[in-house]
């Protein structure tokens, strides 16, 4: 029987693993909810919300979607969660809103206005690219 020498994990492998975990963490997309809304949101539930299938939260408040315009990262996140391009998403909601089956997502150019909207409306939900500096809203990373 031979003794296998203990081989330390190379430093570069540790560094690589750290970077990988960090990049995964950085790629998480923050979801903003009203502070009163403690509903656990996973990707499947979020998709139901963004496609208009789930129109009310568990507490009965109506879902109100807020979208940040001209932010490619937020757009990318919307694409990831809804499975639709930005134009398809808009088109999808125009079909819903103009047949009386839901409210058109609100569009915001300014993130502060978007955050204010989420704070004011108990059923509001928004996807942003960075929530580090945001206060007064629930943030869930997916």
């Amino acid at each position, binding site marked *: 029987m031979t003794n296998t020498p203990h081989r330390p994990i190379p430093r570069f492998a540790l560094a690589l693993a750290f970077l990988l975990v960090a990049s995964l963490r950085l790629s998480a997309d923050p979801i903003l909810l009203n502070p009163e809304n403690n509903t656990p949101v996973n990707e499947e539930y979020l998709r*139901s919300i963004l496609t208009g299938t789930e129109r009310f939260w568990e507490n*009965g408040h109506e879902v109100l979607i807020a979208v940040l315009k001209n932010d490619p990262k937020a757009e990318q996140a919307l694409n990831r969660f809804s*499975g639709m391009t930005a*134009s398809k998403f808009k088109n999808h909601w125009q*079909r819903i*809103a*103009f047949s*009386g089956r839901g409210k058109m997502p609100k569009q915001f150019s300014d993130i502060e206005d978007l955050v204010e909207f989420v704070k004011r409306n108990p059923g509001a939900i928004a996807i942003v690219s960075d929530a580090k500096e945001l206060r007064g809203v629930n943030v869930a990373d997916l």
Partner: protein
Amino acid sequence: MLPHIKEAKRGLAHATLLCLFCTCGLSQTLSVGGFISTGYLESSHYNYLANTEEGTTDFVEAALNASWTPANRTTLNGQAFLFELGPYGNYEPFIDYLFVEYSYSKEFGIRAGRIKRELGLYTHIQDIDISRTSIILPHGVYDPRYRAFSASLDGAAIYGTFGLPGRQRLTYNLYGGHVNIDPEGGLAGFTLTATSRLTIDNHIETIDSNTNFGAQFWYSPGIEGLRLGYGRSEYYDVDIVSHGTFPSNIPDPNLAGLEFISKAIDTSFALDQFSIEYYVGNWNFAAEYHSSTADITLEQSIGGISIPSRGRNPDFRAWYLQGSRRFGPFEIGLTYAEEPNNWEPEFDTVNASHQKDRQISLRYDATDNWTLKLEAHSIRGTRRLFNQHGQNPVLGQDSWTLWAAKSTITF
């Protein structure tokens, strides 16, 4: 349209508009929107939808809608709508939908009032130009002249979505109610077209319907962007009575000046529609197959003497294939639509038995709220041409072209 019905409709439309504005201050969950859509149509031959042979701007739609959530899981939704499409619409505002909705859960909700009627991909959004690439929806499957009895109904619906294993989903919408048929609308136009090439002074004496029931199912098999649909809609107790008079210059002098009456009583229609839609990235594909059957008991008389009915129960079929791709603010779409030869030729006019349409559409979203479209149709056959106003007295040309342009502003 009868004056009191007209007056009532106008009153209802104004009341809804007032309600929509009055609710503006009630809640932050009130959402107000709308659109104004203006267009142009021109054709190389024939007058299709409007007086297109000379080019026309009688191609307008406008809507104002509001959705208000007065309580948890409860919404009140309404839309006032007006349109102009050649002889139809005449800019008279009316209630497109006005209903209260309670959504108990994702799986079960209920709507009551004037609700949108769902059949296939576009029936409930046929007026919403911005919801699609093309300007004109495939005729045979969707005909804008029939909107009076295809777009909405007064009744109730239940709806919901069930999750199935592996990200599959099943969505349903079951509805029933009463449908209003406009005596100056498309069904009247279709009816009078049949007699208008033989008689003059044609008019509808009665056009009425009783009930409409229907169901629409959508199945998503768990493949991103793909859904398959089946819808069925049945109309019962539709009564249509039309009158006409044989002209003095008719070849058979015995008929000259005699009145021709056609009565279709307690007619029922059944419509079936199969749909498939798939989107991936900037591509969008759709195809639909539509069939409808009618159970008609026809009583006809000339000068008060009954004549044997031809006893036909028409069976219509139509289908289309559509593909579109987005390039930034532009979208280009191709459609092939066909209503095959499934109807006995009227008055030996062979090309009136079918219609085939190759269509190219270009959409440009100039801003977030302004969309422009251009479209060209290369058409063979004359199946969808009406003649109730004498707009297409002779159907001698098989191939013809239709151009359309549209500008839509949303708010």
